[in-house]
């Protein structure tokens, strides 16, 4: 899933400092799963903003809506009525950054702000802990590395690691970061495939990654 986390409340407060009435929109997709921007978090953020503004003596009116998804135009359409009727100064989205961009595209005259920092494609390690697993390079080759991704999980995206900074299974950048190449080595060893690690992996073609420009998929079989 796409993992996100809330921006600091101070940053969100400064975004809405000039407004008296906003629409706060959550998303029931990935950001609900990672406890960052679902219905519950929308409620919590709305309360926090109201309390902070009340303290300043400038109350703010906040309506809350949590959409099925914000990365799909059909759900974004559901904001039409409330936006038309309620005269919001701005919309604040708690989806990943796709959400606020969709809202901005659909409601051309509306100011839109992101309440989350979209952080990575990853998964949860335990309750309350998430980690990055994929960098969306567009040409998955993890089967060559014991089904572990060195592009997303090695700090240097090395294809021929581990580098000289691997110590005790940890990456040189932090004791909190596993050396994925150490994990790859252990897994290849378990699978009896260490001989594969003796081969030099040559240049990666990054055209399928972000380096090739913003990406788009067209499925002719689905497109009508």
């Amino acid at each position: 899933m796409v993992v996100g986390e809330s921006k600091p409340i101070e940053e969100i407060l400064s975004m809405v400092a000039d407004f008296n009435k906003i629409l706060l929109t959550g998303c029931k997709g990935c950001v609900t799963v990672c406890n960052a921007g679902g219905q519950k978090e929308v409620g919590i953020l709305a309360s926090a903003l109201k309390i902070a503004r009340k303290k300043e003596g400038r109350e703010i009116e906040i309506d809350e809506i949590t959409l099925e998804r914000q990365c799909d135009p059909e759900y974004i359409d559901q904001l039409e009525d409330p936006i038309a009727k309620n005269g919001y100064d701005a919309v604040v989205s708690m989806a990943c950054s796709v959400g606020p961009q969709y809202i901005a595209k659909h409601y051309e005259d509306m100011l839109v702000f992101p309440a989350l920092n979209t952080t990575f494609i990853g998964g949860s390690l335990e309750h309350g802990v998430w980690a990055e697993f994929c960098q969306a390079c567009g040409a998955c080759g993890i089967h060559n590395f014991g089904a572990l991704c060195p592009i997303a999980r090695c700090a240097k995206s090395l294809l021929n690691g581990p580098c000289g900074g691997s110590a005790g299974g940890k990456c040189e950048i932090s004791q909190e970061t596993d050396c994925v190449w150490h994990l790859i080595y252990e897994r290849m060893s378990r699978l009896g495939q260490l001989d594969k690690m003796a081969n030099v992996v040559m240049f990666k073609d990054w055209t399928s990654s972000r380096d090739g420009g913003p990406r788009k998929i067209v499925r002719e079989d689905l497109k009508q």
Partner: protein
Amino acid sequence: MKAGSNLEKVFAAGHLAVTGELGPPRGADTGHIHEKGKYLIGMVDSVNVTDNQTAVVRMASMAVCRLLLDMGIEPNLQMVCRDRNRLAIQADLLGASGLGIKNVLCLSGDHQKFGDHPQAKNVFDIDSMQLIATVKKMRDEGKLINDHECEGVPPYFIGAAVNPFADPFDFRVTRLAKKIEAGVDFIQTQCIYNMEKFRTYMQQAYDQGLTEKCYIMAGITPLKSVGMARYMQKFVPGLEVTEDHIERLKGVDKKKQGDEGIKIAIEQMQEVKEMKGIAGIHVMAIEWEERVEELVTGAGLLPRPQVA
């Protein structure tokens, strides 16, 4: 001869080669390059010029290499993959060759987290292994990564680094073998302190015939003080400063710790000289160039051979 550099000739003639290291200034002042460089003249066969070492911005390695050539010192251009993509890497390799640089050391590069611009975007388009293959392809096939032919082939003597002290230890010799397969001609090791581990590593490399396939240089860095030793032990990733060194430094008066460090380094050099498969010594006297003469004299490495 692949490049005909002095370093390559020294190896080819069967001598134990000696290289030094020089860190470029954090500014445009070239004065201290000359200052440091003059201590290295006649002491070593060629000098590594670091490339934004520890991810700290310094004068470009290529420029400093050229300044050393002007002083009569043969440089080894260090090149990291952190700061340039394959376009810049190949352009710089062609440019450095155009400036008369013949030795290149292919490195991935320390992560910018450790440096003075931790906010920077890193590149790592290719890694050190692929950088070795890039230089080899340019030199031996006359082709760029994209198979386009070079107009004029850069003759490089290709170097790389290895760290026998990083984990997993059992993979370290395999990684050396990969660098040889990618096309490396000479290797410089990380600073050696754990001699026992290094001996095991070299034995494995020797047993696998790898020491016949490239020239391996043992990396030696003299410890200046207990403080420096502790710092390196704690904060330099992949560096294993063993307690016996620290105990020895502690055993002498604080003012004499530097001298003791030099003494230890000389003993280490004498020890590695006798190891099977060692073809040279890489002396990294960090900000201590003035002591290099003492080090190489003590280790019996002077005079440096004159090779035609």
